[in-house]
């Protein structure tokens, strides 16, 4: 840390002294740059600028999910595998408050907060009984919760309209600002700007949290729960706060998502959503707010644009069909979109083995993950013991 504090001049110095201002500045630059990218070849060949902006707005939902999951996984070191459940809860909260299904029409903006709160409450409800258990059990309980919430939305059809979900959800209105209401299916720009604004607020809050007493407590808890507890940190409350703050971010994302799509159905919130968010957090770099946001944006664009383009590229090549027993390999006919989760799985495993700190690591996390525990060295201490590439066969 001493090396870091000595470099307080220049950009780093400015960004640490004026954190929120720098966040806003960075977001503004990115917000302007992203739509411009879509005008530059080869990207301009992939779709219109409107398509791109709509895609970025959808990517923003996943950026939010990744940011929230990062609080749970990255900051507090708790593995939440049912994160999509809170996303679903947020989305259904808005669906109930502003659709023909209930007849209510509460405006979008206050519902953002309500959705976040409702999700946070469910986070506490799930976390309170299970956070006493060790981390692995939490993983499996959240996995189960993530499975059950869509099942409940599916089966309780009297209250949720079952498979068909809730349709005709009101889109946001801009509170009559500028005398216009631009939100609609044809114009992606208001959604893009809205999600950017939400992300900005969330990122500022997360940075504040990270440096707060609570943020430090999370790190202490993650690194050594026993030591943290003996230093007077209330482990249950601290974990619960991580869990509910993470959940509330998913709730925000859910409200926005429901408003943007105008439809919610149970199958939008399956395990693959939780898994995608986890892959984004792990690839981006657990614990690093910017890394996670960038990771989410990159992964989302790769999956929605990259795989499609790869598919049309490979189809142009003529690759012969190979058959091996039950496995037929026909590269020309591959729909690369099907490979998305296979690639995420591979990415998770490879990242954990080779670069557990992620593509954009937080400094602290990198140190922690590359540390070799001393206790299990019965043989002579080997400085490379933590490095899988150095392990020979035995």
């Amino acid at each position, binding site marked *: 840390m001493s090396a870091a504090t000595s470099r307080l001049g220049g950009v780093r110095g400015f960004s640490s002294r004026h954190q929120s201002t720098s966040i806003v500045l960075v977001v503004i630059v990115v917000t302007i740059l992203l739509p411009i990218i879509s005008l530059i070849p080869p990207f301009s060949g992939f779709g219109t600028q409107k398509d791109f902006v709509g895609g970025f707005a959808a990517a923003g939902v996943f950026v939010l999910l990744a940011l929230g999951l990062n609080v749970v996984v990255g900051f507090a070191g708790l593995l939440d*595998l049912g994160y999509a459940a809170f996303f679903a809860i947020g989305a259904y909260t808005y669906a109930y408050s502003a659709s023909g299904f209930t007849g209510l029409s509460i405006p979008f903006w206050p519902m953002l907060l309500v959705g976040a709160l409702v999700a946070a409450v469910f986070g506490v409800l799930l976390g309170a009984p299970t956070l006493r258990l*060790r981390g692995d059990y939490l993983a499996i309980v959240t996995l189960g919760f993530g499975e059950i919430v869509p099942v409940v939305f599916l089966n309780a059809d009297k209250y949720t309209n079952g498979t068909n979900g809730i349709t005709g959800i009101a889109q946001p209105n801009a509170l009559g600002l500028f005398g216009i209401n631009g939100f609609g299916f044809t114009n992606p720009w208001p959604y893009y700007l809205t999600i950017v604004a939400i992300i900005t607020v969330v990122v500022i809050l997360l940075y504040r949290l990270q440096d707060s007493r609570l943020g430090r407590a999370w790190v202490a808890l993650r690194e050594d729960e026993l030591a943290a507890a003996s230093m007077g940190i209330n482990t249950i409350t601290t974990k619960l706060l991580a869990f509910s703050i993470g959940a509330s971010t998913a709730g925000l994302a859910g409200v926005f998502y429901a408003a943007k799509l105008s439809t919610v159905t149970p199958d939008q919130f399956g395990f693959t959503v939780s898994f995608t968010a986890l892959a984004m957090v792990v690839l981006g770099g657990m614990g690093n707010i910017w890394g996670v946001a960038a990771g989410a944006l990159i992964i989302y664009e790769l999956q929605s644009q990259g795989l499609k383009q790869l598919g049309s590229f490979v189809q142009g090549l003529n690759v012969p069909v190979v058959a091996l027993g039950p496995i037929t390999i026909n590269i020309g006919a591959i729909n690369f979109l099907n490979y998305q989760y296979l690639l995420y799985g591979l990415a998770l495993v490879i990242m954990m083995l080779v670069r557990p700190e992620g593509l954009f690591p937080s400094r602290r996390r990198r140190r922690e993950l590359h540390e070799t525990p001393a206790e299990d060295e019965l043989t002579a201490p080997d400085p490379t013991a933590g490095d899988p590439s150095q392990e020979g066969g035995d």
Partner: protein
Amino acid sequence: MPLAILISLAVAYGLMVIGAGPQAQEQFINALTIGAIYALIALGYTMVYGIIELINFAHGEIFMVGSFVCWWLLTTLGFSGAIQDPVLLIEVLVLAFTVSMVTMGVVGVIIERLAYRPLRNAPRLAPLITAIGVSFILQNLVFVMISNSIVTVPQIIPNPLIQIGPISIREINLFVIVLALVLMAALHLFIQRTRLGRAMRSTAIDRDAAQIMGVNINSTIALTFFIGSALAGAAGVVQGLYFGVTVFNIGFQAGLKAFTAAVLGGIGNTTGAAIGGFVIGFIEVLASVFGVGRWSEAAVFTTLVLVLIFRPTGILGQQLADRA
């Protein structure tokens, strides 16, 4: 304990009679059969957890791939329905179980070697995330390379009702239940009576001490993965033969339920996992008998949470579930 099991079975049967009336016996046997499948999967979870304290999320997918091995073998051999010749039937069954169990055992060992062993001393989060990744790799390999929809497995076992005293049971149910019990008994004897089993037990208790005493930790853990995965492979074959279908995403739910079974029985405890598997089978069948079948997953999950809150050591667990 035998008394407790008998009482539980009697209560379960009573509930079946209330819910299913004349079909009570059939549903009871159905529950035992499904429970046997969960028990076989749960054994792998509990063994792996017992020895390296890792929830092997990929275990459910091992079960799924096992069912695909069975499907591939039987369709390649050209079978499409029941085999009436008993000698041929036994030969094919032995072949199917051997191939699936050995294949999945080897797959399990490879996964352990490549994905888990390098992370054995890493922070706990790392192997858990890897396990989730491996689970997705297996599931999606099958999805993109073999089939993206339900495949039909030839049900080679003929299905006459056999009358044993007052009990009438279908051949397949009898076969599955007996097979599961035989495998469990063999596993129990192996762990309790053999040198390798002792190595497994000692590694589970204290890995470092076991190593000092001359146990080869790496091969013992690999053996644990082999046995656990082979049992899941057997469960996969049973799934194929009993239900006649399999699909790429079958392992996820089955894995979750089997893990619940393992926790219910006391994680790390093989007898407990077997009992837990049967309990889950009964919960699931009772849910459908009482007309709330689509809530059976919710029921199983609620069971998991309740057990974790009120008795995290499970029914039989001697191991501390939350030891640091």
